[in-house]
């Protein structure tokens, strides 16, 4: 299902169920593609980290950002940096959905000479703006790009997605302070707040609360929303865009492993192989969701 491309960066009109349904169906597609990728190639994936940010990536790539998939290096394109690089396959799924490369490339995922590396590689994958993988860096590179955008008075904006666990990295806060001091209103960060890092729930362990207050104290405009709700994401993206003289961060409250019934909201190993029956169950759930979206909710 291809979503009709909006001109970019426009508030998702409330009650426009057609656009919303299109995005919901696209999110179903992304999750299905990733489940099939893990199943068909027999590889372990960061399902939790990928599935908590599907809606975020979907609205950015299929609705919000100004892009030209046929011209990946278009100078005026909006930039996106996946600072939480371990969710790379989720990024690849939306890039393929946009048409940056054919879906057949997934057959060579993580294979020698393939264009889809284990973590994003801007030199190999059309549409990837920055190579990431070492946590705490993509966010800072995005701030540097935002600085260039402001120096040039450029029309493009810079988006970056970081994780809550990544906020344990000191380099995040160093860059956050600099970006606020430089008043980089060209930058919108989205924070995938799924409350779990690799080794388990963050609460009481590597906690980052009070998270919104921390970012506000560092001089950022802070917005919070349900990271699985397209209307809420669109409203927050719009508010971030309106903000002047401050960088913005949207704390997206999300659920780890969202859409995998056997794992949803639960701590799993960060990088795991989904059991065949759990994968089948998740795919069936997606099929059901797709039918709901296309036919209206089933009776009973």
């Amino acid at each position, binding site marked *: 299902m291809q979503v009709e491309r909006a001109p970019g960066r426009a508030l998702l009109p409330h009650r426009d169920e057609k656009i919303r349904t299109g995005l919901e169906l696209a999110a179903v597609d992304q999750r299905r593609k990733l489940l099939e990728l893990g199943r068909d190639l027999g590889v372990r994936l960061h399902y939790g980290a990928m599935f908590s940010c599907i809606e975020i990536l979907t609205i950015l790539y299929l609705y919000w950002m100004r892009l030209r998939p046929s011209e990946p290096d278009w100078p005026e394109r909006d930039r996106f940096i996946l600072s939480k690089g371990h969710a790379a396959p989720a990024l690849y799924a939306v890039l393929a959905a946009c048409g940056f490369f054919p879906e057949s490339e997934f057959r060579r995922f993580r294979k020698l000479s393939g264009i889809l590396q284990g973590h994003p590689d801007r030199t190999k994958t059309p549409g990837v703006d920055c190579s990431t993988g070492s946590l705490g860096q993509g966010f800072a590179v995005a701030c540097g*790009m935002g600085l260039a955008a402001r120096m040039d008075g450029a029309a493009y904006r810079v988006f970056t997605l970081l994780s809550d666990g990544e906020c344990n990295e000191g380099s995040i806060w160093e860059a956050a302070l600099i970006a606020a001091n430089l008043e980089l209103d060209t930058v919108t960060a989205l924070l995938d707040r799924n409350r779990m890092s690799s080794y388990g729930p963050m609460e009481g362990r590597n906690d980052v609360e009070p998270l919104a207050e921390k970012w506000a104290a560092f001089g950022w405009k802070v917005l919070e929303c349900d990271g699985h709700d397209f209307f809420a994401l669109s409203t927050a993206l719009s508010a971030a865009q309106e903000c002047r003289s401050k960088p913005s961060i949207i704390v997206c409250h999300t659920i780890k492993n969202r859409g995998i019934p056997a794992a949803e909201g639960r701590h799993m190993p960060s990088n795991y192989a989904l059991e065949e029956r759990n994968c089948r169950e998740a795919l069936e759930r997606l099929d059901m969701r797709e039918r709901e979206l296309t036919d209206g909710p089933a009776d009973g």
Partner: protein
Amino acid sequence: MGPPTADFGAAFADALLEVGKACEQVVVLDADIADSCRTEAFRKAFPKRAFDLGVAEQSLPTFAAGLALAGKVPFYNSFAPFAVLRGLDMIRQSVAYNRANVKIVGHAAGQSMGYTGPSHHTVEDIAALRALPGIVILAPCDAEETRQMVWAMAEVEGAMYLRLPRGAAPNVHGPDFRFEIGRTYCLRRGGDVTIFACGDVVALALEAASRLDSEGLQCQVVDVPTLKPLAAEEVIREGEHTRGAITVEDHNVLGGLGGAVAEIYAERLRKPVLRIGIPDRFTESDEAPVLREACGLSVRSIVEAARRLRGRA
């Protein structure tokens, strides 16, 4: 009276200002020591193209990478240990792997900060960066080479590191000198021993060669301003007619110029290499010339090494 000397920092400051005038994409990043890094002339001339990130050295490579990916030519500055080692993973991931056109300037490299002690000395920057694919490593021996390197960094695409000593050095290169990335420069011809040197200690090598000349030992002295990519064929050409090589650098004898030359000699020339530099230990506080003398980075050590090589023949 020795030959006239000139200051590395002044040469860098002037050149940075000149490339700033010539190329509006040049941007300067500092981390709270713009004065020590001699970027103030640029900052004054181009206040909208110069940013002080504060005491945040690991953000220098990442912010520079972001600027570079958006078309700027960022020169970022700090003392060498902090410019290179504080954000080494940032240089690895966000600069080198990202193929970002970032220009790293490490100031007061080696032991040239003298009294500040080992926290501010850099014995390992060349070794650390040599193992990163795609980074060009430049070490100037005098002011003129510094000036031309800054131009080359601005003009040639790619991630680069400029290893800048603090203080002045005798002018080694004349007015006809033309620096090119990846070349070596023979400063003196001789058939007995080849001395490869980089940085401000090239002057020590030249002085040692003069002394050895008086005792009938002829040294070929080669300035190696590009540590990576090292011109292997030129190293072989400079060394194949002599008995062996001496390397001279203000860096750990492991992994720097000495290591690089020894690799080429072992594989291609099968001749001895004697490495003069900082032994594999942390340094101490004192004036830079005292520290160099104490660790054997001296004219006397070079002279003795050359005599040893002659004795082996």
